């Protein structure tokens, strides 16, 4: 342990703690722009400088480990003047049209400028405006807002190992762009949006569908159905100032209904359905021994990652569509048929914690209903703003149930939103499918939580199934490299079933979550999903009465021909240069 003082406050912290975190111990928050609690410090902004007695000059708190006996001062006149100067320099090269910025009121630079009391800009502005990158269907990049803090780069290259974004060019011409400056839509970007949620300013944000959805809602000729992903119910409260991870399922249904959607349905319903399809697929692969391990397919960021960097894993992928797309296919067929609505009039909207879902719904093969199955995807942030625009406050809403016949869900569905959840839900039902008996203890704790790659061995009446769970594409890469090596060496892998989610923490850590997120918040949201699971009367997907009904009335049985047509999909090989589908 190291003993030191911060502004005369004594502290004791473990060796290697940097001054930024040591100061928190003493009750001082040192301002910073480039530092993020989940990422390595890069030292770009210099805002966090402090003075240390006996050491000349100023030191970056984020990169300086505190030493024994250090006397640190975090807001001397010199430090405060320097910080102001630095922020002024940043503002001289920043598009400061804050009122029309997507990050207005949520911008770390805006907050910092306010905190430091900057009210005059002493430096001439750089007037040159750079073009905004609109090439991606998921993410917009505005270089005029970018402060080159490097967070997006680190998350894209180190955490996700996608390397779509990088620092290109040099000096004052430095830009964060894709290869050849071709734009995110013409790159290997997997649309996961981790860059978006790590951006401190308004340089990265989702491509919004709010206007289109408003238009559909206000169009009397349209029947607008909405589905909400499992994770959204533990995220939406944050948009209204509720504590992180507040569970608002019922309030969410009520607010969506008041917003004007014609039917408030549930992605959770198709999550249960996914388990039936994927679970059946697992059993048949375990039986045949072919294409093992089976790998989950719910996360569209992960799918594009696999298609781009791991072509040879395509046969291992579950062919089951994601819950969003299963919902889409059923809304314009089964739902339309049962409710007697012309599917051409149905506008299918989904509320997602995800930016990649915007890409997924526009994939050309996602039109099993004969229409684009899902028309618009809104992130949690977008729907939160729309609710506020309509004068709704989620805190004030009553608890309401979803509508039938695509609304009912079990606890197994709701945990899809947390890493390991799909795996756990699948095992709950696979056990029944194989043995005909119910799994007594449905909670499979080894696959829960935010530690790295998780492994477990499940005993299904003597049959041992080795499973692994990865959350983040970096972990997926590590796991798949291992699987590839094993298959190359021994002809088979030690794993039979793998869950991959593109985002750290799973969907509760998706690119569509509220601004200002971190791993601690992701963990909290995940715990709330497990709480909802415990609170629900039914916790196994195969017990969902609406699921049983749809098989009885419409789909016949899991993996039937009809189920295959509507609920299963195929994958493409993509170029590692521009992410486009390769011919053949």
């Amino acid at each position: 342990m190291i003993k030191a003082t911060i502004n005369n406050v004594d502290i004791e912290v473990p060796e290697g703690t940097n001054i930024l975190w040591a100061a928190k111990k003493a009750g001082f928050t040192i301002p910073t722009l480039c530092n993020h609690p989940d990422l390595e410090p890069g030292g770009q902004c210099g805002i966090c400088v402090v003075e240390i007695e006996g050491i000349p000059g100023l030191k970056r708190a984020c990169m300086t480990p505190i030493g024994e006996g250090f006397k640190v001062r975090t807001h001397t006149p010199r430090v405060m003047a320097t910080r102001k100067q630095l922020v002024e320099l940043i503002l001289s090269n920043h598009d400061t049209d804050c009122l029309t910025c997507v990050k207005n009121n949520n911008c770390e630079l805006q907050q910092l400028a306010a905190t430091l009391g900057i009210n005059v800009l002493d430096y001439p502005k750089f007037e040159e405006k750079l073009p905004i990158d609109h090439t991606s269907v998921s993410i917009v990049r505005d270089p005029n807002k970018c402060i080159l803090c490097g967070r997006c780069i680190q998350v894209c290259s180190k955490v996700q190992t996608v390397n779509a974004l990088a620092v290109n060019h040099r000096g004052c011409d430095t830009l964060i762009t894709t290869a050849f400056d071709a734009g995110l839509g013409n790159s290997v970007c997997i649309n996961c949006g981790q860059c978006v949620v790590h951006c401190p300013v308004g340089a990265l944000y989702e491509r919004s569908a709010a206007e289109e959805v408003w238009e559909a809602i206000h169009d009397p000729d349209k029947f607008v159905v909405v589905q909400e992903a499992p994770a959204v119910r533990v995220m939406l409260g944050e948009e209204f100032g509720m504590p992180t991870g507040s569970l608002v399922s019922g309030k969410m249904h009520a607010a969506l209904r008041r917003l004007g959607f014609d039917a408030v349905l549930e992605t959770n319903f198709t999550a249960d359905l996914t388990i039936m399809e994927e679970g059946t697929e697992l059993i048949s692969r375990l039986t045949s021994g072919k294409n093992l391990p089976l790998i989950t397919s719910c996360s569209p960021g992960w799918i594009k990652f696999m298609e781009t960097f791991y072509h040879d894993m395509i046969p291992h992928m579950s062919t089951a569509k994601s819950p969003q797309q299963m919902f889409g296919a059923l809304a314009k067929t089964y739902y339309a048929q049962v409710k007697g609505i012309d599917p051409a009039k149905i506008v299918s909207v989904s509320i997602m914690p995800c930016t990649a879902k915007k890409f997924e719904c526009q994939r050309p093969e996602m039109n099993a209903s004969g229409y684009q199955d899902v028309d618009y995807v809104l992130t949690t942030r977008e729907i939160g703003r729309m609710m506020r625009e309509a004068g709704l406050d989620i805190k004030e809403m009553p608890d309401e149930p979803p509508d039938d016949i695509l609304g009912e869900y079990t606890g197994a569905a709701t945990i899809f939103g947390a890493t390991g959840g799909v795996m756990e839900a699948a095992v709950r039902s696979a056990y029944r499918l194989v043995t005909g008996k119910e799994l007594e203890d449905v909670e499979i704790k080894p696959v829960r939580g935010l530690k790295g790659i998780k492994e477990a061995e499940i005993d299904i009446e003597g049959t041992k199934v080795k499973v692994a769970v990865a959350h983040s594409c970096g972990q997926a890469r590590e796991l798949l490299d291992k699987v590839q090596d094993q298959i190359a060496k021994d002809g088979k892998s030690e794993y039979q079933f793998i869950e991959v989610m593109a985002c750290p923490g799973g969907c509760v850590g998706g690119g569509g979550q509220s601004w200002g997120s971190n791993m601690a918040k992701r963990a909290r949201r995940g715990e709330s999903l497990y709480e909802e699971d415990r609170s629900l009367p039914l916790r196994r997907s195969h017990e969902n009465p609406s699921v049983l009904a749809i098989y009885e009335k419409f789909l016949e049985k899991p993996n039937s021909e009809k189920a295959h047509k509507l609920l299963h999909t195929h994958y493409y090989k993509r170029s590692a240069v521009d992410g486009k589908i390769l011919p053949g």
Partner: protein
Amino acid sequence: MSQEKQCHCAEIQEEELYPRLEEVIKEHKGKGEDLIMVLHKAQNLFGYLPRKAQELVAEGLNVSLNEVYGVITFYNFFSTVPQGRNSVKICLGTACYVRGSQEVLDKAQKELGIKVGGTTEDRRYSLDVVRCIGACGLAPAMLVNDDVYGRVKSPHLLDIIEKYE
């Protein structure tokens, strides 16, 4: 500054150079640390770094395309646009600058109708700046290909470069 043995023969089609690039890449297969070295060699082959060459280098050295692009756009030496038959380089080292090389550069940009780093449409000239070529005694100095010109005055610029076809 000599630009090494750059290929200026326009008649050799770019496509014919790719097998030679493949050979270079083979020597450095999977060695990301050799990236800059390989890019030097590629540029010596093509005179610049065409997009396809960048893609091949990324794949061969097992680095992301963006890393390749990031490196290329960081270093002055690398160019992603084809070079002209004649390379005009104006020294902006301190000694030359003080003696008016910026004026010469402005004139060159105006006369050639291109910016620094650019190539004229007829591929006759490429324009670049260099930082001190050690010819400070001749300031302001410029280079056309391997020929050095000292005490260049902007009115004489055209007379000099027009000698090069």
